[in-house]
């Protein structure tokens, strides 16, 4: 039996996307529970990245639905899903390099706040990620880790309900990763929902309550970390199957 409707913030139904003749996503379905940290994993070529792009509006699906709080957001452009309360970060940081940290924060739209209040919020978030001393520095001059933090803070400007993190652990050292993870848990305690796409299994297994595993464009397993680690289909997806 699945979760009750209002407990599901993002209901992905039979999502499909093909590139040329290749079916990258072939009927993927999963329901992301509200207020929890969930993980979306899968080996290379599983369709995980394409699915993420479909959820964030970077690409439009060929079929299927993406129900956010009941409304279908499939095919909407990123700025539209953003306005509905979904934000995302990028695997390789995409901070605005020739703009200051503060300007990066203020580039966000839809705040509906007067300048002074927006600025205050930006300063608070910059402080939250410990980048206060760099508020006037160009984004491009920050270290990679600092850029990750900036991108994270930037995604939080609108106080979104659903945060999609694209490989937050990529290229990040252990200390910074720990900091990021603490902040992620902090957000979850505030009632936000987080969906993490990751390769780093330790991050997924130790921080996600629910995990969805994709392979060949469909969901092959879902459950709690311990269940997933024991699941033969998942092990096979990652380790490979012997020749039949």
């Amino acid at each position, binding site marked *: 039996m699945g979760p009750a409707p209002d407990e599901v913030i993002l209901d992905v139904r039979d999502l499909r996307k093909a590139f040329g003749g290749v079916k990258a996503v072939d009927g993927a379905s999963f329901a992301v529970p509200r207020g929890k940290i969930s993980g979306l994993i899968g080996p290379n070529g599983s369709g995980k990245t394409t699915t993420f792009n479909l959820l964030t509006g970077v690409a439009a699906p060929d079929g299927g639905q993406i129900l956010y709080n009941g409304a279908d957001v499939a095919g909407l452009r990123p700025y539209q899903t953003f306005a509905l309360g979904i934000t995302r970060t990028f695997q390789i940081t995409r901070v605005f390099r020739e703009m200051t940290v503060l300007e990066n924060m203020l580039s966000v739209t839809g705040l509906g706040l007067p300048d002074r209040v927006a600025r205050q919020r930006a300063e608070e978030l910059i402080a939250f990620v410990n980048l206060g001393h760099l508020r006037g520095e160009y984004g491009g001059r920050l270290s990679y880790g600092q850029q990750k933090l900036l991108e994270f803070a930037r995604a939080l400007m609108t106080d979104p309900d659903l945060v999609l993190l694209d490989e937050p652990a990529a290229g990040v050292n252990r200390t910074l990763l720990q900091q990021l993870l603490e902040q992620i*848990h902090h957000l979850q*305690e505030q009632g936000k929902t987080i969906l993490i796409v990751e390769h780093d299994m330790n991050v997924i297994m130790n921080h996600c309550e629910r995990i969805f595993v994709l392979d060949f464009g469909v969901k092959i397993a879902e459950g709690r970390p311990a269940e997933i680690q024991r699941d033969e289909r998942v*092990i096979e997806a990652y380790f490979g199957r012997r020749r039949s």
Partner: protein
Amino acid sequence: MALLELADVSAAYGPIQILHGVSLHVDAGEVVAVIGPNGAGKSTTFKVIMGFINYLGGRMRFDGHDLVGQRPDRILALGLGYVPQGRVVFTQMTVRENLEMGAYLERDKAKVQAAMEWVFALFPRLAERLKQQAGTMSGGEQQMLAMGRALMTRPKMLMLDEPSLGLSPRLVDEVFDKTVEMARAGLTVMLVEQNAARALEISDRGYVLELGRNRFEGRGPDLLANPDVRRLYLGGAGGPVSAAPA
């Protein structure tokens, strides 16, 4: 003496260190697999051997020659062949032209022709498609072409980087069959693979890397049967990181 030897090798991409003291060796005539979960540094191993990335330390020798600091074309001339990840072929060129590019270092036309004959013997399908533009070939055929091209220098050892990547199961079979065929023809093969089961199936020995370090090594069948190796892929072997915020 091993044909290829890496002892305590470290390497980085710019500021990010990927390999932390990796050691392995490949003896002549062997098929050796290097496997491990994402981020293990498998492909990076090949890249540091070829001199493409920042070498930080350790010993690397091939056929008695020191590889450290050598230019890639010099390394190729020593008899090391390399098939990079992703079926890299010159899409605008024909099959023949791709193969000729593979023999770029060889001036002697007769030797180039002989190499091409040898490649055709191993990959008859390439002989059939000499004039075809590489970009119009299927994924599997492109992978064959990439391998054939690497063989044009008649290397002593071939390094295959993720040969099964992006290929359908049937094509994966073909690629691994060809690899076994090449090994039987006397080629020493080292392959990096994400499809660990298949790679170990055809390998004499294997190394399992995790986060840029050696974790396991042993004979192919032994690693295949070892449950700890599988668990590595899903983070089961690592200790839990504290989930509670400070």
